């Protein structure tokens, strides 16, 4: 079982679904930068060899018995990390889009700012490269929308390159949005008066596979997230402000 190392123990969390072609390289690349970091891959009941590839690369793997979706997988990882006593968790995608070189930057920002969440943003340096047109459009829409709710600009609200500290970990281990969780998670943090920061990161082309958010599903995505945001605003209304 992976164990926290030191007082500020960090765990790397990678949710993965049918990422056989990329997951091994992602784990190996993280190990190049951080050989001693515990890496947990949560395999969302993949039909390919994702589990085998991740284990072969040296990651610990939790495999859920049936397909839960991104949020369910991430929450499983957060639960385990919280139970084991980790102080920080940084989540990366399993397709190789996130450059592990930025893990240190995100961790540093988490510690320095004492924010509950730090987002690796592909737009802070103004590039936003390797983002599809539809996704780019959606991100722009949610930027404007979230500006009203969060009372603070967020440049890359759909980024899956996210670090959280133990306070956020405790909240997300208990409750986490199931589908398209990134934006809803931000709203939950805002309702609990937690803080978030962004750091610029470089986004790369995915090593293998395709994005699950196709053009047709984009509309469903927008509606789902809007409803989810509304639900979370109502759900956490009257929460203890800190």
């Amino acid at each position, binding site marked *: 079982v992976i164990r926290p190392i030191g007082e500020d123990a960090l765990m790397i969390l990678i949710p993965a679904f049918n990422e056989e072609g990329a997951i091994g390289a992602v784990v190996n690349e993280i190990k190049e930068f951080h050989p001693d970091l515990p890496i947990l891959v949560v395999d969302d009941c993949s039909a390919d060899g994702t589990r085998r590839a991740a284990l072969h690369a040296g990651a610990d793997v939790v495999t*859920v018995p049936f397909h839960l979706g991104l949020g*369910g997988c991430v*929450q499983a990882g957060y639960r385990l990390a919280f139970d084991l006593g980790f102080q920080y968790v940084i989540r990366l995608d399993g397709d190789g889009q996130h450059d592990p070189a930025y893990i240190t930057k995100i961790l540093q920002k988490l510690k320095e700012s004492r924010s509950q969440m730090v987002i690796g943003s592909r737009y802070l340096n103004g590039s936003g490269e390797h983002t599809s047109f539809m996704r780019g459009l959606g991100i722009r829409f949610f930027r404007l929308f979230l500006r009203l709710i969060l009372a603070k600009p967020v440049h890359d609200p759909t980024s899956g390159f996210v670090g959280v500290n133990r306070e956020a970990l405790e909240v997300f281990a208990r409750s986490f949005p199931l589908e398209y969780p990134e934006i809803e998670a931000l709203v939950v943090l805002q309702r609990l008066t937690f803080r978030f920061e962004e750091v610029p990161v470089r986004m790369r082309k995915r090593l293998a596979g395709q994005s699950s958010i196709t053009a047709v599903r984009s509309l469903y995505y927008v509606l789902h997230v809007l409803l989810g945001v509304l639900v979370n605003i109502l759900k956490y209304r009257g929460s203890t402000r800190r």
Partner: protein
Amino acid sequence: MERLLSIAAGLSLLLIGIVLFAIRRAHIRVEYSVSWLTAASALFVLSTWKEGLSYIGEILGLDNAPYVLLLIIGILFLFVFFRFSVIISNLKDANIALTQKVAILEYQLHSIHEESETKA
């Protein structure tokens, strides 16, 4: 109108029969059959009690008894569907929590097994 009310009464009795049969065969749990039995019983009472139907029609401003009956059926079944959506949502939440717990326990068990094998 008479024919429609008779069909509604017959269908409600059929629904009660199907639900009771399903309970007996353990195809449906008793707690989940209550909504169906209540809705079907209400439908049966209204389709056989014309004065009651007319009275409700007056309150709603409808002078056509079949419309009143259809409206009430629609409302009753919307409530039933809503109740089952709540139940399904709760079951899904419980399923996810259980799935995550099983996956984590399986991982821990596997790790402990591997560690003990390495020591041996």
